[in-house]
């Protein structure tokens, strides 16, 4: 069609019956999408953390931390000094970090160093942490080293390698590659 001259195109159009599209098609497509979850609107309006939690105190999240400790002890079968660190590393990679007390040890930005708190939410690139002063801090994972402490066992988490959604992390296999340097 685009190669023919204008006259030839006009000629063809006048003789050929061109069927225009129905408008009904678009309605059906919209109806299908409504059934399970409106993704974009839903998350922005309802899901995210509101300002109210800043009024929530740090003490309210301590039972969550206790629950997390029990969960991790259960996951590693409790034998702390006995088992190899390899096993624990692999288990920690797949484990959930909500409710853990972490500290930022090394960071490219010096103002992040030394922040301690309980992890409330874990997103793709950030952690949301509540500190003892009831402040909600948003800390990016990139170029940061977090340290996790439990029963005398300290493990470091290199945030740059952890840039995954928490749900994807339990599905992914980690390979040892690349230098770990800030």
């Amino acid at each position: 069609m685009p190669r023919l001259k204008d006259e030839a195109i006009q000629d063809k159009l006048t003789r050929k019956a061109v069927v225009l599209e129905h408008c009904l098609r678009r309605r059906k497509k919209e109806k299908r999408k409504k059934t399970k979850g409106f993704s974009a609107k839903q998350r922005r309006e309802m899901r995210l953390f509101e300002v109210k939690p800043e009024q929530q105190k740090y003490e309210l999240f301590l039972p969550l931390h206790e629950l997390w400790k029990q969960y991790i002890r259960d996951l590693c079968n409790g034998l702390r000094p006995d088992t190899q660190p390899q096993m624990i590393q692999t288990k920690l990679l797949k484990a959930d970090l909500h409710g853990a007390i972490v500290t930022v040890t090394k960071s490219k930005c010096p103002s992040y160093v030394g922040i301690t708190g309980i992890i409330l939410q874990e997103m793709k690139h950030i952690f949301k942490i509540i500190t003892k002063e009831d402040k909600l801090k948003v800390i990016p994972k990139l170029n940061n080293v977090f340290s996790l402490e439990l029963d005398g066992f300290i493990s470091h988490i290199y945030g740059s390698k952890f840039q995954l959604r928490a749900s994807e992390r339990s599905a992914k296999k980690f390979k040892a590659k690349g230098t770990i340097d800030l």
Partner: protein
Amino acid sequence: MSAQVKDKEAFQRLSFLYQAAHCVLAQNPENQELARFYCHMQRSISRRLVLRQDPSVKRTICKFCSSLLVPGISSTVRQRRCSGRRWSVIRCLCCGQTKRFPSNPAYKLWAEQPEALLENQPQTGERRQVPRRSPQHIRPKPPL
């Protein structure tokens, strides 16, 4: 006949997330966002790894907005009559989605039936009295 190792860790994580959501709601009944976040995480993990969950767990999580349904705080429960039978209608207060369950005390979920347990599954080769699906119950067709 135990479950595979990777699945076990994933299931532990799922149950931890569920308990954490309950814990957070118990501490502060007004803040439902965190509980919703944890339930959403739980659903996405089970979707990613294709893990089945017990219906009793699925019934307390809203399918639409994935918030934790606690009757009285985040959901309302009513008994209604429709087409001659009694239904329990659970309505999520956050998104307005309803769930309907017929109240029939004689109905057993698949998970509760004795066939579903692994121990009751007959081992192949030893016993021939296998329920329904084994090929031995199918009589060979007479040649036409």
